[in-house]
């Protein structure tokens, strides 16, 4: 019987080498190393889009010898949100999961840092916009990988014929296929006049003022156009600023031309208004157009997606990215990172965008000029300007740049739309509205 003595120094050195190798090593394929991976992805609205991602995942799994299980979790009825909350509480669940807008920051302490995945992807495919960075990177650490699946713009989706007829705007000329926008005159005043014309004609702009995402996003973009922040990046309440007052005054004028029931609109109301031909413009990704292609082709033929009007402080379009995050309790973090990297490669991204009919937008700047958006029809090129290929507008999210935990509350409780309804619909005095918003936000600041 022999025994080998290991010195303390040798043991420490050996452990350090082994730990470094484990942490730094890329995911290595092998019969035993690959293991299992449980995936929870967002269940796409667009029929057939899940098939595109499933094919890619199977291709990756076969190559890396990983046993994968995929769950497509709907966001209907907040199922994805509830799944994430439950998994975070139980510290058990999917290895890699789709996180919408605010959730990476909300679960920052429980997510594996992704700098080693995102930074090479940025080098490879170009920078991400400021909104993606604001939502996905906290204190210098990427909390999740910007995902192509589900990431969307909520810019104007307009009727070509109705804008021409009732507002005198040739939107295709303003936003031509294959070329930069000629939209210098497309500002909030032009927008207001167009809203008035379409309202008089009985086809008002379908902008909601409820507390669901579509309403909040549009309201937030217009607030940004006036430089109206409710809370600044330092966490100070800035509700009583000139920008906020100007934004509310603008809304007061705009509300006169919106449907009278807009305070009760949800995310389906604008789609229904557009597809039924009752609205000349809504703020939406191409889902309404996709439904119109199926149910009302004559409306789809006349649909054009384009940029937001500009305001005194710039042109802002709402961008809502999804992310892929990996829990700290995930048992196969290396495989999860490998999958996120694979799905972010240009070829995979192109396949995902095609499968979604152009709905999904990658966050990396070099990937926003894919041919699919120029080719989608009818009418050909309707989606060309949808992914902001000429960086014509600043991609933004309502409630930014407030610290995440405050911003998430401002966003989910629809504080901006509530301010608009109080001031512009209920005619409450502006100081009372600003006071109400300040008090609400003070409440969001508790630690």
């Amino acid at each position, binding site marked *: 019987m022999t025994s080998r003595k290991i010195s303390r120094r040798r043991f420490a050195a050996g452990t350090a080498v082994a730990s470094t190798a484990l942490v730094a090593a890329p995911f290595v394929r092998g019969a035993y190393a690959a293991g299992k991976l449980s995936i929870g992805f967002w269940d796409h609205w667009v029929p057939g889009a899940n098939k595109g991602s499933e094919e890619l995942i199977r291709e990756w799994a076969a190559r890396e010898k990983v046993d994968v299980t995929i769950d497509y979790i709907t966001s209907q009825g907040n199922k994805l949100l509830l799944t994430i909350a439950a998994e975070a509480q139980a510290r058990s669940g999917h290895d890699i999961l789709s996180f919408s807008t605010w959730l990476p920051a909300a679960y920052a302490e429980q997510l594996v840092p992704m700098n080693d995945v995102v930074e090479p992807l940025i080098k490879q495919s170009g920078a991400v916009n400021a909104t993606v960075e604001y939502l996905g990177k906290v204190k210098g650490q990427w909390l999740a990988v910007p995902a192509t699946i589900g990431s969307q713009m909520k810019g104007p989706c307009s009727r070509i014929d109705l804008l021409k007829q009732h507002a005198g705007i040739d939107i295709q000329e303003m936003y031509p296929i294959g070329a930069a926008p000629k939209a210098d005159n497309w500002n909030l005043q032009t927008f207001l006049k167009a809203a008035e014309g379409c309202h008089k004609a009985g086809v008002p702009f379908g902008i909601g003022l409820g507390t669901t995402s579509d309403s909040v996003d549009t309201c937030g973009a217009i607030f940004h156009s006036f430089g109206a922040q409710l809370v600044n990046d330092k966490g100070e309440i800035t509700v009583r600023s000139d920008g906020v007052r100007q934004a509310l005054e603008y809304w007061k004028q705009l509300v006169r031309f919106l449907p*009278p*029931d807009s305070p*009760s609109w949800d995310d389906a*109301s604008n789609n229904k208004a557009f597809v039924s031909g009752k609205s000349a413009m809504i703020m939406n990704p191409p889902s309404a157009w996709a439904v119109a292609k199926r149910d009302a082709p004559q409306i789809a033929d006349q649909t054009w997606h384009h940029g937001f009007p500009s305001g005194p402080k710039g042109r802002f379009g709402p961008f809502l990215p999804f992310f892929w995050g990996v829990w700290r309790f995930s048992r196969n973090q290396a495989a999860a990172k490998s999958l996120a990297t694979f799905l972010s490669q240009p070829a995979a991204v192109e396949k995902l965008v095609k499968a979604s009919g152009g709905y999904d937008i990658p966050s990396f700047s070099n990937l926003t000029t894919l041919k699919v958006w120029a080719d989608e029809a009818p009418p050909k090129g309707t989606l060309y300007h949808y992914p902001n290929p000429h960086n014509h507008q600043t991609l933004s999210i309502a409630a930014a740049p407030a610290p995440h935990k405050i911003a998430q509350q401002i966003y989910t*409780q629809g504080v901006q739309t*509530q301010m608009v309804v109080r001031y512009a619909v209920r005619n409450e005095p502006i100081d009372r509205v600003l006071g109400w918003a300040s008090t609400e936000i003070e409440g969001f600041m508790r630690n």
Partner: protein
Amino acid sequence: MANIAAGTVRDVAGDNRSGLTKFMQRKSTIAFLMALPLLVLIFSLVAYPAGYAVYLAMLNKGMTRFVGFANFTFLFSRETFWMVVWQSCLFAITAVMFKAIIGFIVAHFVHNIPSKGQRKWRGMLLVPWVIPPAMSTLSWLWLFDPSYSAFNWLLQPLGIGPIPWIGETGWARFSVILVNVWIGAPFFMIMYLAALKSVPEQLYEAAAIDGATWWQRIWFVTLPMMRNIIAITALFSTIVTFANFDIVRVLTKGDPLNTTHVFATWAFRIGIEGNDIPLGATVSLFMVPILAVAAVFILRDITKRGSEV
């Protein structure tokens, strides 16, 4: 000596066995064992989550430290919280009152239908109660739809409307209460019908001989005989209505301007959507004292009447 010792051991073992057998044969033991699965279920699905909610309500927003009752005192300072308290009370009390009145009236109508056709009516009237509320509320949502309301379409030729069913505070509150009454009234109806059937016919005959009017028969015979059922049904319905989530969530999501939120929907908005789980848990716990007070009063009254009998 050894044999004696062995015999003693056997006796002790025999005594133990018979003791265990006796213990197992006791009615209370059998009752406990039979109730055990239910107790486990109640503990795991009610007691544990309730205890966990209390624990969560005493954590800070980041769930990293214990803050005692700070979340409760914080809520007391919020305008929206008091609005939700007011709405929850308005919603529950109004809905329960209308459900009780409608249930009582309909139960009388059904009671007076000849027994041959009564079963059909009972079945039909129960339909709103047996459909899953989320589904039926979705149908109501389409009837109230801001732009395509079927009600407004019907009212338009009469020169009425369009009514903002879920777009204006007053109408939105009316709509959520209406749907709750529509779903819940059949439960009251069936409970009251059962109570009506158990009122002895002789009491009505005696009242008729004494020359009691229709109203006097209701007031002095029917209502006293139904008091316990009315109280229990009202208590049960108050608890369920206070804790309602699906109707408000599907119909208005608490809009406009948070004026239709009840405790459960506001707790969801804050806790899950706003990612402030401790505050959400705190909001949801506010239902407990309100319902406990209601339960104590109603049950005390029932016990008092029970002992009088």
